[in-house]
């Protein structure tokens, strides 16, 4: 492994962000809109609900964590799309760079951009709506870690799909979080889902995270085995996604797809 090559991928992403407000703004704007919108909804629910339940930590907290997961996934895919859109895949893959070095660079880029998004969301949620995750301290780390690992896995998987089917396949990748969200039980308990959806949900690491978050907010002890299962699944998905990307890459080298790859030549 060459740190220099991995650092080059990260540096390239930094150069792009530094020189382009249009790349910085989405890191801030969408998460800010989500936090403000859901913050206001939770305030309204608090004012009309007679149960006395505080919706801020359960709903707004869930939105914050779910947005973090989306940022992680998109951090990987957007860094990969930069190579696709600038048609530099040939120059990159005709160099000594190894796949783990390249993917490592995408992951580190994603850590930086998603951490920035998380900081913005936390700032808004705490200053405007009084939701501070800091009070949970280190207990929060496993939740973030599971979401982070699963986000990376989906990002690598999405990048492999675009490598195989071309730039237009990006429209298959952006909606993936929206497709998963009903199954991930972000806003409601798993028990609210029909049984077949619960089976699917058990295969998704975020469902364990959100079940645990709800348990903590309700003042119950969180089940460690659920989080362990979520982390195990997320780690498994990362391995599968890396294997899938490697398989697609090798297929592209066999068929000459990388050599021919350009935004126009593929449908």
């Amino acid at each position, binding site marked *: 492994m060459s740190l220099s090559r991995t650092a080059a991928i990260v*540096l390239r992403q930094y150069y*792009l962000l530094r020189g382009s407000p249009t790349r910085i703004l989405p890191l801030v704007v969408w998460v800010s809109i989500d936090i403000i919108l859901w913050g206001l909804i939770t305030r309204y629910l608090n004012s009309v609900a007679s149960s006395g339940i505080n919706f801020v930590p359960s709903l707004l907290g869930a939105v914050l964590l779910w947005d973090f997961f989306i940022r992680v996934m998109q951090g990987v895919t957007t860094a990969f799309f930069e190579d696709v859109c600038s048609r530099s895949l*040939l120059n990159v*893959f*005709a160099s000594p760079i190894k796949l783990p070095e390249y993917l490592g660079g995408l992951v580190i880029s994603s850590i930086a951009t998603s951490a920035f998004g998380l900081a913005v969301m936390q700032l808004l949620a705490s200053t405007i709506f009084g939701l501070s995750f800091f009070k949970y301290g280190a207990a929060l780390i496993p939740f973030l870690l599971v979401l982070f690992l699963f986000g990376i896995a989906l990002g690598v998987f999405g990048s492999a799909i675009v490598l195989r089917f071309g730039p237009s396949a990006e429209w298959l990748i952006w909606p993936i979080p929206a497709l998963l969200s009903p199954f991930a039980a972000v806003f409601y308990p798993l028990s609210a889902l029909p049984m077949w959806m619960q089976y699917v949900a058990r295969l998704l690491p975020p469902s364990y995270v959100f079940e645990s978050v709800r348990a903590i907010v309700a003042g119950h002890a969180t089940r460690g085995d659920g989080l362990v299962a979520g982390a195990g699944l997320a780690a498994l998905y990362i391995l599968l996604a890396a294997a899938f990307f490697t398989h697609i890459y090798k297929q592209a080298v066999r068929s000459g797809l*990388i*050599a021919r790859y350009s935004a126009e030549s593929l449908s």
Partner: protein
Amino acid sequence: MSSTLSVRDLRKSYSNVVAVDGVSFDVAGGEIVGLLGPNGAGKTTIINVILGVLDPTAGSARIAGENLAGNRSRALAHTNFAAVYASLPGNLTVWENLRFFGMIYEVKNLTQRIEASLKEFGLERFRDVKCGVLSSGEQTRVSLAKALLNRPRLLLLDEPTASLDPATARDVREIIREFVSRDRGGVLWTSHNMYEVEDVCDRVLFLSRGKILLEGDPKTLPREHRKTSLEELFISIAREPLALEGR
């Protein structure tokens, strides 16, 4: 001369189409070899195989003694390339592009090396300009600067002067000749400009339908085949490859 590139029995086929058919050749250090042939002859396929972005159906390529199939990364660390169809990221400046690729090729003393490259290719005033807004000739110069950044043992150039005006093309040829004599790098060069090939190449390989039909000194080869120029020889091979295949 030691062999910088050694290609043996290279074959690439796509279902029923044979793009490269049992090609073997060497490029020595300090040698510029021209890979010539009509469109579709298999030149770019061979270059793509050597660059590790296309798996051969059979055969092997060794770069500076490293087997490409066995250790792709170490073999490619000895190479670099510039091609008219492989532009550098247009959303990065000239400096950023050279820094990015310099780190990928693990170039020592990178900052000084970039400064020297900018000067060598007359790119100093474009240092902070995004590559996407440069003219095609300027982009080619940046690509060549990137290609020489790591002082490769093997330089692959696919029509490197295709979009350059004659004066700039001559400068570029001079820079590459200088690189060869100074660093003793080997160069595999494809071009459709026969004047350029005759001027620059020590040896040429004529390729047609995936096979090497002729090999020799570009200055003497036309006479040996009763042609008045390399261009005439090229045209006759492109039109009647079978006549030569039988020889």
